[in-house]
């Protein structure tokens, strides 16, 4: 059964079938950046214009200030040390709370995904917790932990962990059965099956859960900081509370802008990670 070897034919067919690499010329990166940026800039400009219009009508003129007043207030705050200090305090809580939520959510996620009775018991509770408004946990947290950072962390964790756990559970559940069959025939069992197949396969859903978890964590943190008063740890939320009590529209709006920007920046990081993962796996259209 001497078969003529035809590696050249195979190589030829391979080359014909592969997609042509079509990276843009010089300036392609700048063009892409501009294409991504201009809709956002336009949206910001529209919001500022609408705000300015409302301001010009004189509606609630005794409190409502125009964009220029607020932005210059923000600029001034950015010159001082105070704003950065409170951002530091809040981000510290955010990072600690989110890290704990990530740990707890992941452990619960793996356990629930692996142990069927546990899933029957707590699977729906996790989803239920997700729909719970985080502000509702604040009184509970204060009663247990008092006016302390533990109370805030508790609220953050309860906000974020369910999403993270759910993301991981979904990822494990939707591991393609064909890949599981392939893995089993290769001899992957138990922990090795999880390490080399199930967990990597779950990564996109896990990251989606982490992204959602961050949104919940950030919301919960703000809710917590607005209510829980910790002496000696002045945070973004507490600053916002002070401005509200002083009816300081410009100051409060500046802080709201800061909250919005931080939330968006972190969310963008998660989106980038998500895109990178999906691009690596060929889950994105090549044109994007």
């Amino acid at each position, binding site marked *: *059964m*001497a*078969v*003529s*070897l*035809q*590696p050249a*034919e*195979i*190589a030829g*067919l*391979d080359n014909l*079938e*592969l*997609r042509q690499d079509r990276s843009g010329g010089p300036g392609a990166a700048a063009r892409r950046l501009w294409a991504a940026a201009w809709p956002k800039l336009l949206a910001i400009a529209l919001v500022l214009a609408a705000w300015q219009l409302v301001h010009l009508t004189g509606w609630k003129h005794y409190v409502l200030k125009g964009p220029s007043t607020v932005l210059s207030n923000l600029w001034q705050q950015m010159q001082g040390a105070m704003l950065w200090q409170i951002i530091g305090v809040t981000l510290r809580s955010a990072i600690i709370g989110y890290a704990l939520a990530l740990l707890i959510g992941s452990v619960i996620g793996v356990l629930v995904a692996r142990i069927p009775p546990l899933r029957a018991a707590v699977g729906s509770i996790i989803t239920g917790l997700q729909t719970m408004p985080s502000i509702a946990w604040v009184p509970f947290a204060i009663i247990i932990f008092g006016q302390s950072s533990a109370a805030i962390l508790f609220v953050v964790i309860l906000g974020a962990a369910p999403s993270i756990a759910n993301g991981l559970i979904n990822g494990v559940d939707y591991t393609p059965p*064909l*890949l599981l*069959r*392939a*893995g*089993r*025939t*290769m*001899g*992957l*069992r*138990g922990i*090795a099956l999880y390490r*080399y*197949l199930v967990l*990597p*396969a779950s*990564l996109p859903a896990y990251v989606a859960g982490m992204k959602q978890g961050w949104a919940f964590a950030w919301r919960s943190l703000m809710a917590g900081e607005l209510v829980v008063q910790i002496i000696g740890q002045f945070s973004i939320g507490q600053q916002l509370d002070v401005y509200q009590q002083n009816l300081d529209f410009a100051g409060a709006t500046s802080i709201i802008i800061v909250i919005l920007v931080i939330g968006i920046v972190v969310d963008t990081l998660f989106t980038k990670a998500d895109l990178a*993962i999906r691009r*690596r*796996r*060929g*889950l994105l259209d090549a044109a994007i």
Partner: protein
Amino acid sequence: MSLSIGRRSAPPGTTPAASAVPAAQGNPGPATPAGLAAAPAGNGSTAAAPAGGARGSGIAPALSVSEVSKVYGAGRGAVLALDRVSLNVAPGEFVCLIGASGCGKSTLLNLVAGLDTPSSGRISVQGRVALMFQEPALFPWLTAGRNIDVALRARGVAKAARTARTRELLETVHLAGFGRKRPHELSGGMRQRVALARALAQDADVLLMDEPFGALDAMTRDLLHDELERICAERTLTVLFVTHNVREAARLGDRVLVMSSRPGRVIEEYPVPRTGPRRIDSVQVAELAGRMTDRLREEMRRHGS
């Protein structure tokens, strides 16, 4: 000496020489459910198999399926997918299995691969089994090279050996320059070759193929037939190849088994005379394919009335 090893009870990451150390496999012996993996030593040459007369009956078959039935469901809704199927495949033999839809070809492969257990009957395999699917089933988050690497890792091959072996296997399937590409960057034919390399990485003695070229275009399929033939000749692989395509079966097989549908049963056996290199468009292949098609049509008519 013929030893049938309970492949299913082999722990992951056993030594590559698994077939040489049957005693160390932790094989529970006759206590295995349905006696699947527990064919006693020396029982490999099941002589009673009607359609499984391996050529040279003195040699123990590499793969032996005897009186295997598979029922899905229970009670009134139960479906008999396989009905007392028996077949033997000699070491180094290439056996094709064809049949219309519902003949349980894929069920049979799953049973042999140990992904499912038979309702009755016995399956014994000498050595390791690898299974290839119609889809490449590569891990999309790994490069082509790492996909092969993971199969070696599952067997517990040391790192240095893995790197060398991966390169070697990529060369075997003519993909030496593509080890760092991810599956989605490769064409369908290339992916299927990576899947073949991954199957070879499992160091299997028996290769089960479930319509592996079914989703490929005809040109690529013809080239892969040559490739598969060369690779099997190089390493005396035993192959059980399931296909819908009678020409493909006649082109590749040393022997072709035709299965009936609902319930699945081996109804006919066609030895393929080996006279020089074959091509999908050669006269002998066409003639044999014609006979097999007639037989399959007859089977379809039986279900039509």
